[in-house]
C-alpha cells in the first residue's frame, strides 16, 4: 500500500521555473480537452453556460469554492505526465505587486502564448449572450487597477486588511468580510474577471481563489473546530457530487496543505 502524500499549494511567487512550467503544461493540457475534463467545462461551472452554479453572498461561498478548486485541481493532476507534480498556487494580492509576472507575460521566451495570461472563452451557446447581459468575447482580458501602496479603495486589499479579517472570531463575520475582499480583487483585475458569468475563464481566477481558500485555512487553524455557522454540514455542494459542506472543512482530508513559508526564487517567466 502506497503512502498518500499531501500536495503543497505554494505562493505563485515561490514557484520554481520548473513548477511554473508544470502549471502552464497542466493548464495547456486542460485547454486542449473539449469534453468534461477540459478547461472550458470547468471554467463554465462557475458562470456561463447556464446554469450559473457559483455561490456568493451566503455562508456557502467558502465551502463551495473550496470544492470547486478541489475538483479543478484533480483534473489538472489527471492531465500531467507521470512523475510531474502540479498544484494550484495562490496569488497573494495583499503584497500590492499586482498580477504576478508569470500570469502577466503574454508571450513566453520560446514564442508561444502564455496559457496563464489569457484563455479562450468557449463552450457558451450564443443564445446565452443577449443584448442586455455581458458581451460575448473570444478571449479573456484584464484591465488591472493601480499597484503599490496608497491607492485606497482603487488598489488591492492590504496585508493589514487581511490581518483584520483573520482576527475576526465569528464565521459569519469572517466570511462576509473575506468575500468583500474577494469581490474587490475581481473588480481590481477588471475585464473578464469582473463579471461572474465569465470570470473563471481567466487563469488568474484560480490563483485568486486559492488565496481566498488559504485565508480561510489560516482562519480555521486559528479557530479549531469552527464550522460554517448555521449551514448544515451535510448540505450538498452541487455540482460536485462527492462533496458536502462538512467534507470541505479539513483541507488535509482533501489531500492538500498550504506552504507556511514563501522562500525566494528566481523570477519565473
Amino acid at each position, binding site marked *: 500500500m502506497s503512502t498518500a502524500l499531501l500536495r503543497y499549494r505554494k505562493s505563485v511567487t515561490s514557484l520554481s521555473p520548473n513548477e511554473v512550467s508544470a502549471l502552464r503544461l497542466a493548464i495547456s493540457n486542460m485547454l486542449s480537452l473539449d469534453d468534461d475534463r477540459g478547461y472550458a467545462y470547468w471554467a463554465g461551472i462557475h458562470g456561463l453556460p447556464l446554469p450559473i452554479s457559483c455561490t456568493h453572498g451566503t455562508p456557502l461561498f467558502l465551502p463551495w469554492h473550496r470544492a470547486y478548486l478541489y475538483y479543478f485541481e484533480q483534473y489538472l493532476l489527471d492531465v500531467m505526465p507521470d512523475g510531474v507534480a502540479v498544484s494550484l498556487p495562490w496569488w497573494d494580492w495583499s503584497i500590492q505587486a499586482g498580477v504576478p509576472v508569470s500570469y502577466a507575460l503574454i508571450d513566453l521566451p520560446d514564442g508561444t502564448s502564455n496559457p496563464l495570461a489569457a484563455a479562450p472563452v468557449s463552450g457558451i451557446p450564443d443564445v*446565452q*449572450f443577449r443584448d442586455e447581459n*455581458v458581451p460575448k468575447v473570444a478571449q479573456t482580458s484584464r484591465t488591472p487597477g493601480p499597484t503599490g501602496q496608497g491607492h485606497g479603495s482603487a488598489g488591492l486589499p492590504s496585508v493589514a486588511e487581511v490581518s483584520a479579517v483573520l482576527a475576526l472570531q465569528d464565521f459569519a463575520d469572517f466570511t462576509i468580510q473575506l468575500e*468583500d475582499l474577494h469581490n474587490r480583487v475581481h*473588480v481590481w483585475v477588471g475585464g473578464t474577471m469582473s*463579471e461572474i458569468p465569465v470570470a473563471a475563464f481567466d487563469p488568474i481566477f484560480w490563483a485568486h481563489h486559492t488565496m481566498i481558500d488559504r485565508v480561510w485555512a489560516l482562519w480555521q487553524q486559528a479557530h479549531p473546530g469552527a464550522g460554517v455557522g448555521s449551514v448544515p454540514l451535510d448540505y450538498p455542494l452541487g455540482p460536485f457530487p462527492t462533496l458536502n459542506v462538512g467534507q470541505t472543512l479539513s483541507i488535509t482530508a482533501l489531500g492538500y496543505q498550504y506552504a507556511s513559508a514563501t522562500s525566494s526564487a528566481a523570477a519565473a517567466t
Partner: protein
Amino acid sequence: MAPFVSNPSTVMLTAPSEPYVRADLELHGVDHSKASFEGRLFLNNPEAGPDTPTTDESYAGSFWIFGHGGCAGGEGHCEPSRELRPFDFRAEHQLTPISKLVVVTAKLRQLVPPARDFSVRIVPYVRPESAERLPSNLVTDLLHFERVDLLAYQ
C-alpha cells in the same frame, strides 16, 4: 455601450448614545444582478457622488458587489421567486438579494457625536474601463437595497 450613470442614495441613522468598540453599517437586501461595482459610503455628505474622492474626510469605507452581469436566460429566468413553496428543496435563487457589511468605527467616532442623527450617502461606482465594455442597462440604476442598519458593539 453607454457611460456609467450613478444613482446614489441617502439614508438617515442615529449614532449610539453609549461608547462602542465597533460600529458596522449593514446593508440588507442588496441587488447584485447587474455589473460589479464599488459602493462608497460617505457620512454627513449628502451631496457626495462618483466624483467625490475617497480621500474626502466624509468617506467611511466601501463594499464591493461581484455582479451577476445581467440575465443570460429567457424572460423571468433572473427573477427570484417571492415565495418558497412547501417541499421546494432547491437551493436559493442565484439572485436572492444579499447583505453587505462595512466596519466604520473610527470614522463614525470622528464625525458623529453620540446620539446624533447622521446621513449615510451610498455612491455606486463602476470603473470606467468596465463600464465601457458593458451594455447600458448593466451600469445604470445599480443601487437597490431594502435597508441599512447601524450595529454598534459595546
